[in-house]
């Protein structure tokens, strides 16, 4: 492992990769600070820029944006009470209260240092888990992959922030979209309406840029934040001994929890930060302080959301399964560069894997050095009005959609998905399951068909093999457990009706 890590550092310390790592974490911090632009949309926007780079350089920069955004998000939460990033929503609760009490410095300090500790922990976790997990994954056949993807999709739907049913509909739409194009087995045209541009299927970039870039713009234009009051007076960034004493266990718990939830499909930074806040409040000896400026309420969630970023890479790089939208984007970025994420990645492209791991160590150090001294500059960025930002975001979406295949059809497709993304948000459908369904739909169909061909059309193959049976059984259990409260509610209603 140490030899591989040295290889990784030798790749990452090349001037171009070091520079791109810096650019990635800098952009990540910036978009983390700015409300209304998440890492998913930014990675989609910057996707065309990476086309001319090597796969290692591209993944180092794009990953930097992802974990950099988790650092930046806390700044806005603490100073403005507006989460710069979805994963920093809970940081507002106690971070802003600390800022109002004149303790913005320690809040920002513990957020940055806690993030650094958790970020480093998650990279170590990734390093330790990746090799054995990918060796295990090599033993997986099509039925096991089918079971695993079904479980992954179920978890994504189960952990949906809004309605589970709507998340399932969203995921199914994604699976349907993934089938558009020429079928690779039978060469039949599927749902193309005879349009030549759809023969190769829907391109990933216009879909994501539309749903996340343009869809967000339409939504933000409805409610522009006209006036925001920013706390600009920040002093004593380094937390004192008492702050450290109060925060050390929340950081440890947040790091472990975040990493584990990051590995789960549908988990990731947002869920981890909420879960960590809940746990900290429950185990605290002074839960009444939560919501009124408890430093544990900043340290735990901030550590958790950063640790989750490292955890998210585990299934992507070892199993080839993206667990959230950002991972789906990185998946397609690697695919575009001819690198297939999955069990063979570490063997076939050790420079990509170990280069990424090493870049995460270096990126975390860069972030902690960047964040604290540059806080006054980040605060200034918060004052840029959205009416100036949105035309630029739209411009990036337009260029990105065109750049992959050089077709104006893709621009129209991006606009179409922009409207769909906006409507989905309006009617409380989450776009993330759609993207995951779209990405995993291909692998799901392929593994299903290959399994059935292996078994001469016998569906029992999925239950005869222990690993796939376990995956599918667990997925079924999750779906049943989700419908139990609903059934109980129905039964109670029926009982009431019978009584009356």
């Amino acid at each position, binding site marked *: 492992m140490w030899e591989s890590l040295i290889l990784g550092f030798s790749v990452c310390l090349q001037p171009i990769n070091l520079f791109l790592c810096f650019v990635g974490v800098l952009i990540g911090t910036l978009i983390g600070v700015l409300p209304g632009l998440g890492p998913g949309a930014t990675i989609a926007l910057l996707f065309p820029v990476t086309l001319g780079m090597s796969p290692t350089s591209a993944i180092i920069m794009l990953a930097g944006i992802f974990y950099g955004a988790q650092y930046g998000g806390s700044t806005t939460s603490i100073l403005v009470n507006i989460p710069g990033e979805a994963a920093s929503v809970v940081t507002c609760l106690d971070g802003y209260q600390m800022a109002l009490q004149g303790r913005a410095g320690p809040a920002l300090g513990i957020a940055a240092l806690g993030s650094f500790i958790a970020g480093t922990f998650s990279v170590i976790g990734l390093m330790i888990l990746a090799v054995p997990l990918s060796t295990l994954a090599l033993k997986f056949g099509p039925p096991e992959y089918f079971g695993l993807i079904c479980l992954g999709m179920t978890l994504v739907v189960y952990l949906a922030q809004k309605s589970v049913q709507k998340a399932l509909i969203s995921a199914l739409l994604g699976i349907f979209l993934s089938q558009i194009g020429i079928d690779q087995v039978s060469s039949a045209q599927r749902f193309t309406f005879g349009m030549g541009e759809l023969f190769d299927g829907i391109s990933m970039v216009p879909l994501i840029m539309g749903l996340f870039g343009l869809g967000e713009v339409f939504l933000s234009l409805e409610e522009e934040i006209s006036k925001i009051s920013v706390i600009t007076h920040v002093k004593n960034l380094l937390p004192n001994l008492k702050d450290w004493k109060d925060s050390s266990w929340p950081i440890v718990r947040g790091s472990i929890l975040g990493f584990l939830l990051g590995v789960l499909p549908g988990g990731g930074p947002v869920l981890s930060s909420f879960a960590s806040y809940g746990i900290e409040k429950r185990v605290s000896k002074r839960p009444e302080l939560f919501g009124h400026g408890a430093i544990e309420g900043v340290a735990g969630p901030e550590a958790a959301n950063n640790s989750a970023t490292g955890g998210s890479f585990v299934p992507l790089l070892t199993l080839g399964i993206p667990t959230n939208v950002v991972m789906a984007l990185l998946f397609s970025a690697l695919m575009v560069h001819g690198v297939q994420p999955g069990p063979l990645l570490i063997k076939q492209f050790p420079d990509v894997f170990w280069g990424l791991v090493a870049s995460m160590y270096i990126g975390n150090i860069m972030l902690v050095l960047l964040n604290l001294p540059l806080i006054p500059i980040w605060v200034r960025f918060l004052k840029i009005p959205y009416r100036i930002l949105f035309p630029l975001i739209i411009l990036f979406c337009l*260029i990105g959609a065109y750049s992959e295949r050089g077709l104006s059809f893709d621009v129209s497709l991006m606009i179409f998905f922009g409207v769909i993304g906006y409507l989905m948000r309006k009617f409380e459908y989450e776009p993330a399951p759609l993207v995951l369904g779209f990405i995993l739909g291909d692998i799901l169909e392929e593994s299903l068909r290959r399994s059935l061909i292996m078994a001469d059309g016998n569906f029992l193959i999925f239950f005869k093999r222990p690993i796939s049976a376990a995956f599918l059984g667990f997925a079924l259990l999750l779906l049943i457990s989700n419908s139990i409260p609903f059934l109980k509610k129905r039964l109670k209603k029926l009982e009431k009706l019978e009584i009356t």
Partner: protein
Amino acid sequence: MLLALAICYSSIRLSLYARRGPGPGFMGFGTGGVLFLLSLHLFLKNLFSSKREAIEKAVFRNWKVNAGVLCLLIFYALFLEKLGFVLDVFIVLSLLFAISKNMKWYVIIGSSVLISLGSYILFSVLLGIGLPTGVLNFLK
């Protein structure tokens, strides 16, 4: 629901089974079927629900701005090949900045020229992404 039914219908036409195992329409039929059941359930739930929360949330505020932006984007897609990237972006950006009202006309024109030219140089010249030149092809 209609989309789900259309997916099922098209999938059946594609054939559900092949010689060995599932055919090209198999997965689509399954997806469409489950989608139909879920949509039907949601439709019935909303039909008999007294709550009007979802409808209230879906109020389209500031819709004129969004409709304007959408029209500009459609214009961009339609005229990208004919006008070329630089001219098309210049027109769309100027009008997008104009929506913001608070900018003076010469600032709008100046920044639109700078951004459209700058982005063309960055993406087409430096990064090698082939962007259409359209009517400005003679300048190439």
